[in-house]
């Protein structure tokens, strides 16, 4: 019976890109809110914190996936795990790119 497991499995595979998307949306939307309510530095701290948290989430999930890999029950399970780890690596790079912008460029201008 196809219950939500396959959907949950596919979503797990997409964990890295989903974190990237959430991080991207958050830091972009936050600039408008911070610049309207607070001064620029608040946003810088927010971006750096959000980036650190997002990277930590991706790393933690990747290390969990790496531990699971040797025990992958089938070829396709191993395939999904490897795809997941590669996606996480790319997503981590994307998060780092965006986070670096937050650290280097001025806010609210």
């Amino acid at each position, binding site marked *: *019976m*196809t*219950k*939500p497991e*396959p*959907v949950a*499995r*596919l979503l797990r595979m*997409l964990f890295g*890109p989903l974190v*990237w*998307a959430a991080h*991207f949306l958050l*830091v*972009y*939307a936050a*600039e*408008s809110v911070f*610049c*309207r*309510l607070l001064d620029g530095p608040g*946003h810088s701290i927010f971006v750096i914190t959000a980036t650190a948290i997002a990277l930590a989430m991706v790393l933690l999930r990747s290390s969990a996936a790496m531990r699971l890999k040797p025990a992958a029950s*089938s*070829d*396709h399970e191993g*395939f*999904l795990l*490897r*795809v997941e780890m*590669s*996606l996480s690596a*790319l*997503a981590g*790079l*994307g998060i780092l*790119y*965006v986070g*670096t*912008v*937050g650290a*280097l*460029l*001025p*806010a*609210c*201008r």
Partner: protein
Amino acid sequence: MTPIRERATLDAAAATLPRPEGELDKLEAAWKLPRGWRILSAVNNTVVGQFYIATAFLFFIFAGILGLLIRLQLAVPGNDFLPQETYNQIFTMHGTVMMFLFAVPAVEAAGVLLLPQMLGARDLPFPRLGAFAFWAYLIGGTVFFCTLFFGTAPSGGWFMYPPLTGAQFSPGVGADWWLLGIGFIEISAIAGAIEIIVGVLRTRAPGMTLARMPIFAWSMLIFAFMIVFAFPAVILATILLELERAFDWPFFIAARGGDPLLWQHLFWFFGHPEVYIIFLPAAGMVSMIVPAMTGVPLVGYRLIVVALIAVGFFSFGLWVHHMFTTGIPTRSLGFFSAASMAVAIPSGIQVFAWIATIATGRLRATVPALFVIGFLLIFTLGGLTGVMVALVPFDRQAHDSYFVIAHLHYVLFGGMVFPLLAAITYWAPAFSRRPLSERLGRWAFGLIFAGFNIAFLPMHLTGLLGMPRRVYTYPAERGWDWLNMVSTLGSFILAAGILVFVFNIVRHFRPSGSKPAGDIWGAGSLEWLPNHTYGLRSVPRIDSREPLWEQPGLAREVDAGAHYLPGTATGTRETIVTSPIEGEPEYVMRLSGPGWAHVVAAAGTAGFFLLLTVKLVVPAALCAVAAIVAMVVWMWDCDPPSAGEVDIGGGLRLPTYASGPNSHGWWAVAILAMVAGALYLSFIFSYLYLWVVSPTQWPGGAALPPLASTMLPVAALLASGAALFAAARLLRRERLPRIGLAALLALGALLAAAAVGLDLWAQWQAGVRPQANGYGALVYGHGVLQVQIVSAVVAVGLFAAARSLAGRLTAARRAVFDNLALLWAYALAQMLFGLALTHGFPRLVAEGLPS
């Protein structure tokens, strides 16, 4: 339901041979194509797919002719070949038709045509929906294109920026044609996307795990999901702009609390992923062609899958890179510039994987291979200039110049048209009695490759010399004249190449359902097995990514009926539904056959939108009624009762009915709910965006409807949910009270509709008016979205009630109810959230935050 997952055999065939007499005749009878002019009522993916591609190619030629007219006008300075307004209409239609009537439909058509064969399915899961999408596109697209001949075509550019396209500066119907026509065609694209997602995830051959799925199917899966999340943004934008134009609701009028930049955000949230929506399937085609032409498996299959998924995600973080010159804060520009750099990495992975595959094998210099090489060169150059315009300082110089025109043509023509031409040549023998001519193909390639570069390479320079896009003429002393002349000459060489390509098709392509030329390339994927109107005679178990290479006798076995489902198990059209990850058989799905209802529904839907554009309200309403009646007729027989378990060979017995989360219909509704969710999220973005740019428009507590006014709508929504819950409980009974169930369904759906009405009434009573300012427009715009989702619930609810009365909705035959329940639950959640948003947020910002 207990699906039987035991594996029949690994090496031996599933069904015994020889097959019983008459089995093949029954299969052929079930899948028989209508003859003569009745072929228009066919729903087979091979027929609809070929119609679809032919239509898309026809629009490509039409839009290409418009491109030639543009080039003729610009060939010499001070030219008066075309009047300015005509020129504006022509360049608008060139871009619009190429993007909306050619590029997206062409790749969707390729999916419809190829996916079932490639996945080992007999057809896609919703054949009539696919045919409906095609007919809606054909009728809508043709009428839209013909507006050009009456001088009423849109003229505001393919991305239709307000305020130019608002009622003040574009008072005619041109912009309305674009908004209603293109909005409607996008709905048809979404219908196709839903079919592709369910088809790829649920109708693969047994054993075809995600790890063994052809790359083209991966690319189409991601393409379709991107449509699901990207298209709603532009659909919302078109709804809002049309509301502004028709009823003066100022969403995009800055002086009244709107903002024209909101359009740009919504448009490019769709528009940038759109580039990849077009490119990914083309990349998928290349990933299929390269191994066939080199004779070795694709290098880096997994990395290509990773790259496709990553591009799918990253491309949603690029939309502002079309808006670098709009005054957005530096840091925000940096975010999007960084994301634009990031997307180059997965794109690069694919290019290197293709090069590595070519280096590993021995590339045969066939016509498809030549077009692939042309693609690699041209797309890579376009990608590099893409990295250039992703840099904010460079983009500020090049923005809206011919440099951008050159870049986008290198990306889109190189990234999509070259692979498509390669694909047409490559897959023609799978559907035609004879392959296309190699000689003519080489001529076509040579002319197209040379013509393209002669036409578009100089435009980089023209742009850097300062020529802005969209000017209908220019003075001689600017120094742009010789570059423009070269571009014009190149464009005609390119057109000559396309002409040779078309001549090749006309001369050699002879459609054949039973005796195509077949696998002349020695490829390894399933679409090269002997295909008939019913697809494969029998469906093999898949153990590798290139089954034809791994199992040399497979074609013979499959055609002899030695594998699964060698006949028709229920006497009708059917295909095997498999699990989404492992591809294990779960049940046998019965498919719709030919009919006219979906054609009438498509014509009625198109007529409704198009007649509404020219304010012919009564004929438009009649078309809507015709469409609804046709849809009811179409859907009435779509949920046949179970035919029990059937034997599909190899010891596998499968059920013939499924409902709820296991069924293909439920998956389709779940994806439809995602579309609705994406539409609503785009609205929330618009709501918050206009608050950010015009917070003073937001009223304080006193000017809002009293909080108590939300009590009635909330009560109505809760009662609606209770009716749904009660109906679900009632449906479990063996002795079903049909009238009671019908009454619950109808009443529950109408209660949800009442909630929307009550809320809008409260807003009206409080003095909120949609014409007053951006805030008022948003409140009623929100109402429009709620009316739209609740209308769907009411329509399906009444349909389910009618089925209950007719005895077609029972405990065992409940797919319609389960699908409705999912949509209903989503709608209730959206409506409750909507009440919190429209009543809570203004109070929150009035009391808690400075404005």
